[in-house]
């Protein structure tokens, strides 16, 4: 029995390791390429042959990386702040009230997350252009919000569902209003959920490509995704593209790793139902 258990454990370990290698291959090879000189790209294999860190210096002069970072951070932070707020309200309504049209509302919310961006991007552009929000940060942010609000709402709702109503009743007796209850009792009790929502929306905002591409015009509003993809034009050498790519995803990965304890907790507790 014990031997069998050990065998199963080894099997699991091997499988997980293979999967992790598969997961990391693209990121690792990008890392190797980013430390290689153009001429040596063909020679590099497991480890960069020349540790050419100059790529990381050159890239700043090649493209407007600072500008891309700034725009990306604005999209990511803007999206996540507003998303958390909207989702908190909506999730609270879904969790605590029975109201007419609730089913229909939930259906609509679900639908928003599966509308293909490529379907909706051009009409969104036309609407925003008409109301004067074309080429603004807020225009991109609300477009992102509209198609990504579902998951945070569903996530927070399952968090709120887990908080006993009795607590609120006690507070209500003390004369607390609904919004007061929401912010004084529910929100503090769902910190992991709020944090998870924030982080997820942050990554969503960070990774947007089509919306900023179509909804902005000014070069200062170009985010990393669009800016770096522009380098994949077959003229910019691969190692530069990879350096840019890595620089663009590293902040997101670092934030993820820092927050991952809460993230996994939050996602586990509020698993998508």
């Amino acid at each position, binding site marked *: 029995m014990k031997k069998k258990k050990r065998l199963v454990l080894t099997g699991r370990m091997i499988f997980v390791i293979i999967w992790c290698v598969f997961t990391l291959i693209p990121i690792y090879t990008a890392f190797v390429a980013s430390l290689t000189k153009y001429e040596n790209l063909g020679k590099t294999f497991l480890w960069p042959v020349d540790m050419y860190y100059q790529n990381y210096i050159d890239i700043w002069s090649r493209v*407007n990386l600072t500008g891309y970072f700034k725009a990306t951070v604005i999209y990511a932070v803007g999206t996540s*702040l507003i998303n958390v707020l909207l989702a908190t309200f909506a999730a609270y309504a879904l969790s605590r009230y029975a109201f007419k049209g609730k089913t229909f509302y939930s259906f609509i919310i679900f639908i928003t997350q599966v509308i293909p961006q490529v379907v909706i991007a051009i009409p969104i552009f036309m609407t925003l252009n008409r109301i004067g929000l074309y080429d603004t940060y*807020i225009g991109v942010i609300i477009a992102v919000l509209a198609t990504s609000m579902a998951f945070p709402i569903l996530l927070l709702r399952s968090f709120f569902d887990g908080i006993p109503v009795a607590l609120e009743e006690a507070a209500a007796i003390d004369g607390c*209003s609904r919004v007061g209850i929401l912010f004084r009792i529910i929100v503090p009790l769902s910190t992991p959920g709020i944090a998870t929502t924030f982080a997820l929306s942050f990554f969503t905002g960070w990774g947007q490509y089509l919306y900023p591409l179509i909804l902005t015009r000014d*070069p200062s509003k170009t985010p990393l995704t669009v800016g770096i*993809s522009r380098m994949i*034009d077959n*003229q910019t050498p691969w190692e530069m593209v990879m350096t840019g790519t890595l620089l663009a995803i590293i902040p997101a990965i670092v934030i993820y790793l820092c927050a991952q304890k809460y993230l996994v907790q939050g996602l586990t507790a509020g698993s998508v139902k």
Partner: protein
Amino acid sequence: MKKISWRKMLSCLLAAGMVTVMAAACGSDSGDSGADQASSAEEETVTITFMRTGTPEVLHEIFDPIIESFEEEYPNIKVDMQDLGWSDAETTLQVMASSQTLPDVMYHLPVSIFDMADKGLIEDLTSYMDDELKEDIYPSLLEAGQYDGKQYMIPCGALTLLYWYNTELFEQAGLDPDNPPATWDEFLAAAKAISENTDAAGIAMYGMPSGGETSFFFESLFASEIGGETWDGERYTYEYDENRQAAIDTLEFIQELTQYSQGAVEETSRFDIRTMLRDGTVGMALDAVNMANQIQDGLDSGQFRVAQIPAGASGKQMSAVNVGGFFIPTNSEHKEEAWTFLRYLMNTDNQKAHSTYGSIPILKSEAETYDTSDPYWGTIIKSVEDSVPEGVCPKTNSLWNLTGEQLQLLMMNNQDAETTLDNIIAGHEEIYNE
């Protein structure tokens, strides 16, 4: 109590909104402040925007000095150069056109320019052009910028198909580098000799139709097979019907070439073959002048050479010419200033600098600055003189796409030349009639 908390909720919303708006404001600040300061410093200074599709850092190296000297010469005009990569150019262009935010001077390809011209978005530059400029631009290039009898585009970037080869591999294969193949039969024989007698493949072929490159390849060979224009500029159709056999022969030639090429032709792009030739994995390639940037050292040392593409049945070593150029949109508020800048860019020296980005000479005066007895420049300038304009109309993107797909099938040996031609003709027919 109740009221207060709703207010609280509202204020929270507002606060979040403000954070974003402030962030947005900060963002646009840096962009605008420069222009503001400039306008306060000098009265009636006009800022025009300029966009040249391509790799930003390379383009800035070329254009920043030109812009600087322009601003010195015309102190009341400031030029704001903005970046646009090829990968998202079409998308951005459409969106800018739709929102009336096209830059005052822009470089792009005739397909999109003519489509926008059809919609009344492009300024007809015929009346702006002076005779000096008209005379100076090669006729086939000037013609390529015309649509519906109007000069919508001033050509400033052009490509012909050229024949690049590796002299070392030529010698190894027992071929004479001083007498490169001049006909299709000789060319095939050379490709065969290289792939049989050396480690390298005979010829680099590419099947990725990313921007009409393979269609251009086909059209150039077809031009040399029939010895003239491949496109009926009056009816906006390709001339395959009258030259059916010639088109089939051209396609067969392309298919035969793939026998002596590197593997996975359909996955290879025109850019990939440049490193292949550079690294000696192939002996020859048919590519535009952009190849030179990649193999410059070898060209200097004599390892690589360039020649006219081999001649088809017509006996003429000629290529189609693919052109891009500047245009001014009708939405521009400073058309005069925009033209002043555009005209400045077309000065011989400036155009020469621009051509280093990857273009054959556009101006005769530009060509004269090169030594035509030099085999490299001789070849390149002759290729412009002998070229025919590539066919372009607003539907060209769709036509190229379809041709590209069919050529891929041909190069993957999934269908023969005749079927390919029939599919191309039938597919084009549908697109013409749409």
